[in-house]
């Protein structure tokens, strides 16, 4: 049929048809490209707490990261009073955005009275510049505040292929030699402890390890989210040296606020923060997982409301059948305030028990808790970057310094 059609079409007409088709495709490419470009270059803002004292960059710790899309800001709150140092690291997997949102709540509201607090709001900056390949979902989600609506990105799990490609057939973690899935070479939380002359992801991993080493971090907290079909959801994961604190924190939270399980970090599973931060630094590491149904594989459409409200009938059926690892209730869902609040109180609980186990640790700092977010919503704790009184405290989160957009 096509040959017959071709015979009836003159070469000139055929050329015009081809040019028109190509032009239409270029228009489609431009429309899609605009969205992709906007997501990659979007600059999130927050209004820093008055306790913020210094902004450093991951490339200050690993210079080979400078100029790459995996470089990112490191915010330091120094009370000026000698004491312990806490790292609150969020966004290792930017498709788990409640961790990043919780970091913003900390950055905007932290009060540090003894010791130092270091916050990395987006640890995997490159993975924050794209959506998951093959998974159609919204680029942004929105939080209602008293002064308007604030827009935030939903990213990916892996470093953007624009920044690191190709993947090998098998990823071999350095220096353990452990073989992992090929795509995990772009997964920040599989590339620890990293190396200075490795891939961009390995360099970012080393930069975070160097933050812990050079800043003498005592407590290092890594914030994640997990599917409720995955056993390690709603959980602390801790290695031997921090397991006692994690268990006490988990028991207390489960008894008083929300379910928080506790898992021991496997000694032979390499590349993950809770293992390598323990083995390659002096810090006590803790990984926290909240339930994020948006990334479960059996949900209905992946809409913005699924991200922000977390209500899904299919997961309710799976839970009723005993197939999930979280007491999921569709009527409540897993709203954003709930997940961010879990991280905030999860971290505060760790600090409380760390001080109990070691009174000389000297850490005194606070920020809004789960109960605060339950009472007021998360938007209550986010400040207006356009307000004149906040103008001097606005910070842009991007892979390179931004003074003003």
């Amino acid at each position, binding site marked *: 049929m*096509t040959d017959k*059609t071709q015979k009836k079409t003159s070469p000139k007409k055929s050329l015009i048809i081809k040019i028109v088709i190509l032009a239409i495709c270029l228009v489609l490419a431009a429309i899609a490209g605009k969205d992709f470009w906007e997501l990659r270059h979007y600059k999130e803002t927050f209004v820093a707490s008055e306790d913020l004292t210094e902004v450093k960059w991951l490339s200050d710790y690993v210079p080979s990261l400078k100029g790459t899309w995996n470089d990112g800001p490191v915010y330091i709150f120094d009370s000026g009073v000698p004491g312990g140092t806490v790292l609150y690291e969020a966004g290792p997997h930017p498709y788990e955005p409640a961790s990043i949102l919780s970091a913003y709540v900390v950055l905007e509201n932290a009060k540090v009275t003894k010791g130092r607090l270091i916050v990395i709001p987006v640890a995997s900056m490159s993975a924050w510049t794209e959506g998951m390949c093959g998974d159609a979902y919204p680029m942004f989600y929105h939080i209602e505040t008293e002064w308007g609506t604030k827009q935030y990105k939903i990213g990916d799990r892996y470093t953007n292929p624009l920044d690191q490609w190709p993947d090998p057939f098998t990823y071999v973690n350095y220096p353990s030699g452990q073989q992992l899935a090929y795509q995990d070479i772009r997964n920040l939380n599989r590339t620890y402890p990293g190396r200075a002359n490795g891939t961009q992801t390995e360099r970012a991993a080393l930069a975070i390890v160097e933050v812990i080493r050079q800043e003498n971090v005592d407590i290092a907290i890594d914030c994640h989210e997990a599917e409720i079909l995955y056993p390690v959801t709603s959980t602390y994961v801790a290695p031997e040296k921090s397991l006692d604190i994690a268990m006490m924190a988990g028991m207390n939270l489960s008894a008083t606020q929300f379910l928080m399980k506790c898992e021991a970090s496997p000694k032979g599973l390499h590349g993950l923060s809770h293992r390598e931060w323990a083995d390659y630094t002096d810090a006590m590491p803790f990984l926290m997982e909240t339930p994020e149904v948006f990334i479960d594989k059996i949900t209905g459409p992946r809409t913005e409301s699924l991200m922000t409200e977390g209500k899904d009938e299919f997961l309710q059926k799976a839970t009723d059948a005993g197939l999930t690892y979280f007491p999921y209730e569709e009527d409540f869902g897993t709203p954003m305030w709930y997940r961010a609040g879990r991280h905030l109180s999860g971290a505060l609980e760790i600090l409380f028990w760390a001080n109990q186990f070691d009174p000389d640790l000297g850490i005194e700092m606070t920020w809004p808790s789960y109960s605060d977010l339950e009472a007021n919503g998360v938007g209550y704790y986010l400040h207006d970057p356009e307000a004149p009184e906040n103008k001097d405290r606005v910070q842009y989160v991007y892979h390179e310094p931004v003074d003003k957009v």
Partner: protein
Amino acid sequence: MLFFEKLIHILYFVMAGLVLLCFLKHLFKRKKNNGIVFDIMYAYCCIPFLLRILYIK
């Protein structure tokens, strides 16, 4: 190692450009499958390679 990694990364962008040129050649000059459906297919397949060499996606 950083040099070779960068080199391989750049080569993949060059390959994306070559694939794009290949599709464009087949769009305008091909001997078989001359129907409009194949015109659409070749033009549409240019999109991801174009976005890749433009460092957009």
